[in-house]
Structures are given as structure tokens and as C-alpha cells.
């Protein structure tokens, strides 16, 4: 009896398998449910609150922002103020925004120039030492960003090793104030901070190119440079784009590099504007508007990144 019923159950299951219905309908959604709920509560809801504050009112007495929960009543005056401060006549936020663009473009291009040869060397000529090189390339990932900036603060201080080395070799007479609000220090700090994130995707992209492709190019008469320009470079275009997006996204929200390596308003970036507004009582509304604007500005690169990674994972298994 028992045997027969279990056999019947198995038969049913097999029939279900043939129809493609293996599991109860709720089975897989139940696994995702806690995560979905968590993200709804602590990821989607916070953005709604940011919007409600950005388009909210300001308490006339205490000057603190009052969120407006109903989207129909949203007030665009803070948004108008901030946009006016960025592009208008008394545009005191404008320079920081322009500076952010210049710094981020310069730092990400420099990162590419540094990272590409390194990734190329390890992918193409790493040979038996590839594992060792990769370990060394990954190492900075596990050193906290703050520590890496602290290391440079130590080196660049008035009596730091950099000034001392330059004075010992008589290249300079007086110690240079590297940390006194120099744009070049901030850009180099950004490069130092984010270049490891560029090396890895470039390595992955370059490592995937079949050596036989390059051999074919050389066999067909292309020079080294020609092979690089006409085969390697076009084939690594996706990796370059991915790497650029990966480093520029966090750079646009960076304020701590600036705070540690310059600390001067002369080099402040959008991240600093947001951080200062959030830290100043009564400016929360402005901070929220800046967050919304930054989010809108970065939406396209973020979508591109999501699209390219999900495509890569599909291709990886196909």
C-alpha cells in the first residue's frame, strides 16, 4: 500500500516535472521575500523621504526642513534655490560643481592611463606569476580607504618624508604645503584611492582576449602597435567603459579625500557640499536637493553599469 502510494506520488511529481512545475508557486518568492521587504523598507522608502524633504517646506521658526509626504503638494522652491545657486547669478555652488567635473574627469583618465598598462602586462605577460601579481593588485582593496589617505597625509605633511626627500636632494629649499588646498594633491589622492577598482575590470577584459587573435593579427602583418590599436584596444573597449564607470561613480560622491588631503574650500567638490549641508542645522533641505540632483546626474552611468554587468553574467554562462 505504502509502496504503491509513494510510487503514485513519484508519478505525479514526474508529470509535474514534465509540465515544468516543480515547486509550489510560493516556493521561490518566499526565499526572496525577506530581502525584498528589507530593500523596500530601507532602500526604496529612504529615497521617498529624500524626495519629501527635497520638495518639502521649511519650518519658519527653527529653519529645519519639514517633509511633505503628499507628492501632489510638493514644493519646488528649495530645488529652484539650489539650481539658482549652481547656475544663477549668485552661483556660489557653481564653482564646486564645475570643479567636481574637472577633478573626476582628470582623476579617472589618469587612473585609466595608470591601470591599463599594468592590467595589460599582467594579463598578457604575467605567465606563471599571474597569481602573485593578482594578489598584489588586489591587496589595496583590503586596506581601508581611510588608512590609504592617512598614509599620504603622513608622507605629505610639512616635515613628512616627501618634503624631506625633496629637500635632501635640493630640489626645493622650503617645505611645500602639499596639504594646503592643492587641486593636484586632491586629484592624485582620488587616483590613488580608486585606481585598484580600475585595474581589476581591465585585467578581466584583457585576460579574456584570445592570444590567437593577436597572433593572427601579427601573422597578417600588423606591427606591435598596429595589433594593439586595431585588435587589443577595440576588444577591451567594454572593459575600459566598465572601469571608468566603476571609478567615476564613487568619485562623484567623495568628500573625505578632499577633507583629508586638502581641507580647504578652494578644492571642495559636490560630495563636500552635500556633507556640509547635511551637517549644518537648517540646510537639510538643500542637502536633500543636492542628493536628488546627483542621483539624476548619475542615473545614466549607473544604468549602463547594471546593464553591462547583467549582460556579462548572461554571456558568462551561455
Amino acid at each position, binding site marked *: 500500500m505504502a509502496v504503491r502510494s509513494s510510487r503514485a506520488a*513519484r508519478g505525479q511529481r*514526474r508529470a509535474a*516535472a514534465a509540465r515544468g512545475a*516543480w*515547486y509550489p508557486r510560493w516556493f*521561490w*518568492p*518566499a*526565499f*526572496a521575500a525577506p*530581502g*525584498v521587504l*528589507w*530593500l523596500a523598507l*530601507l*532602500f526604496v*522608502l*529612504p529615497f521617498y*523621504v*529624500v524626495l*519629501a524633504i527635497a520638495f518639502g517646506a521649511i519650518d519658519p521658526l527653527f529653519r529645519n526642513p519639514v*517633509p511633505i509626504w503628499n507628492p501632489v503638494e510638493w514644493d519646488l522652491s528649495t530645488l529652484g534655490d539650489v539650481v539658482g545657486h549652481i547656475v544663477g547669478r549668485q552661483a556660489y555652488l557653481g564653482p564646486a560643481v564645475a570643479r567636481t567635473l574637472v577633478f573626476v574627469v582628470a582623476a579617472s583618465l589618469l587612473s585609466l592611463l595608470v591601470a591599463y*598598462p*599594468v592590467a595589460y*602586462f*599582467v594579463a598578457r*605577460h604575467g605567465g606563471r606569476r*599571474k597569481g602573485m601579481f*593578482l594578489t598584489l593588485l*588586489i*591587496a589595496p*582593496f*583590503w*586596506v*581601508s*580607504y*581611510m*588608512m*590609504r589617505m*592617512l*598614509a*599620504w597625509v*603622513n608622507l605629505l605633511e610639512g616635515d613628512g*618624508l616627501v618634503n624631506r626627500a625633496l629637500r635632501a636632494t635640493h630640489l626645493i629649499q622650503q617645505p611645500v604645503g602639499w596639504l594646503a588646498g592643492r587641486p593636484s594633491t586632491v586629484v592624485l589622492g582620488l587616483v*590613488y584611492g580608486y585606481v585598484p577598482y580600475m585595474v*581589476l575590470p581591465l585585467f578581466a577584459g584583457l585576460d579574456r582576449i584570445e592570444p590567437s587573435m593577436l597572433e593572427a593579427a601579427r601573422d597578417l602583418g600588423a606591427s606591435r602597435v598596429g595589433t594593439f590599436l586595431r585588435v587589443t584596444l577595440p576588444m577591451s573597449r567594454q572593459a575600459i567603459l566598465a572601469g571608468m564607470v566603476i571609478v567615476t561613480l564613487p568619485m562623484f*560622491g567623495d568628500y*573625505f579625500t578632499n577633507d583629508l588631503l586638502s581641507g580647504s574650500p578652494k578644492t571642495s567638490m559636490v*560630495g563636500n557640499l*552635500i556633507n556640509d549641508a*547635511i551637517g549644518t542645522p537648517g540646510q537639510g533641505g538643500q542637502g*536633500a536637493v543636492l*542628493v536628488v540632483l*546627483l*542621483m539624476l546626474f548619475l542615473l545614466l552611468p*549607473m544604468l549602463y*553599469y547594471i546593464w553591462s554587468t547583467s549582460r556579462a*553574467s548572461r554571456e*558568462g*554562462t551561455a
Partner: protein
Amino acid sequence: MTAPPTQVAPTLERPRGVSRAVRWWRSPWRPPRLLEAFAWLYLAWAILPVAIAVWFSFNAGRSRSTWQGFSLRWYWTDPVLSVWHDPDLHSALLQSLRLAALTTAVAVPLGVAFAIGLDRWRGRVAATANFQMLLSFVLPEIILGVALLLVITNLLRFIALGTTAQFLGLVTFQISYPAIICRARLLSIGRDYEEAAMDLGASPLRALRRVLLPLLYPAIFASAVLVFADVIDDFVIVRYLSSDAATEPMSVKIYNSARATPTPALNALATIMLVSSLLAVTLGFLVYRRMTRGERRGASGVEDFAAQL
């Protein structure tokens, strides 16, 4: 008649040297010396500043640029200023480790279940959830940090700023790590093993627990290590969601005092931070290598482990 050759000789020498260089340059078997030098230069630039900072944490004096002899003063010998005895630095260390352990314990199971669910659950809701998860992965931290701060101070007021808020925020930020890593692994596992188990009579849950989960262990483990190390290094979210000096972890302490005449105790704190995340990752890598014995592609497994990043 004897003079010209001696005059010609040096002019002949030079082109020979140049042509040798040209020939070396054109040789298809030329080892890429310039590239290699550049790669080593890069590694030195990436690693030396940190190594110097670590070195000066063992300085006997107060300076962070003049070596005054080796001592463990800044770790625990100094009765007031050392990491061990300064209550401020001591609590920062504990707070970092506490947050890392708590976040890993919650974010990893949540993310793994999320990945399993999303891998099989089709439809618009699932696609939206997947998109949210990926968005939380690429979003600059400052945006999420400010959003979390505003939601906790304006709407969810019952959540106290401090450890609770930091923990909730970190889990939100880290959930995507295990989810992405496990999804990639699930895609490569496919459904064959599970179907075989169910053909042999396993119930769905049993097939999941006895077949799919063991296959996922390496990915789960790798993501736990990544989350732990990443939380130790986290700065933006934990700073916005901290309530007072007692809930500020190591990274925030470094940020606060890096420009305000710090002692090498700060370097010592940073070194401890470095060692704890390197230790977690190295241990993680070794265990990962043991787990994936027999299915390795790269020579040392570093490539596979790196591919998880």
C-alpha cells in the same frame, strides 16, 4: 693614409649601438621590460605608502616621519595614548568588529536567500527587486548614507542612531554582495543536480538543502569574507548613522584625527584595521581554495577568487 680609419671608427660605433637597440626593440621575442618596470613601479606606489604608515606605528617617538626606534608603545605599552588604553580608540576597534560580525551574520543569509529566490522566481516583481538590489550595489555610498540618515531622523524615529542604525544601514548596503556572487554561482550550477535529486525522490526543500546549498558553500563563504572585510573598512554610512563618539568605528576615528596632530597610535589603529581585514581575506581565500579543490581553473585559485569580486 692611416689617419682616416681612426676617424671613421667612432662614427661607425654609434650606429651599431643604435641599430642594436632598434633590433632589440623590433624583435618579436623582446620581453616587455618597460611594461614590467611600469607594473612594478605601480605596485610600489600602491603599497609603499601604506607600508611606511604601518612601519611608523612601531615608532618609539611621537613622530610619524622620523624613526626613533622600535617599540610597541602605541599598541599597548603606553598607559594613556596606546590603542589598548585610550578608551576612545579601544571602543572604535570594538565597534568596527561588532558591526562587521553583526552585518555579516544577517546580510549573508538574507542575500543568499534573495539570490536563490530571484534565480527561480520570474515576473515583474522579481525583476524590480533584482534591479533594486543591483542599484544598491552601484549607488555612491553618500547617496544611500544621506537617504538612510533622513529616513531614520524623519520617519522611522523608533530606530536609534548608533549601533542599531549603523547595522541596518550596513546590511542594506551589503546585501547585494552575497546576492550577486551567489546568483553568478547559481547560473553556472544550473538545475541538473537538483532535478536529479528530485527524480530520486527528494522533496523540493530537501533537494535545496542537500544538493543546492552545498554547491553554493564556496560562494556563500567568499561573500561572507567580502562583507566582513568591507564593513571593517566602511566609512560613509557608519559615520552618518553614528550617534556619538562611542559608536564611531575605526575608519571614522582616522578621518576625525588624521589632520589634527595625531600620534602614531592612529597608525597603530589603522594597522590593526588592515591586519584584521587582511587576515579575514587570507583565511577566506585558503578555505575557499580547499572548498573548490578539483574545480579550479587558475593556477593558484587566486584568479577564481578574484573573479568573485
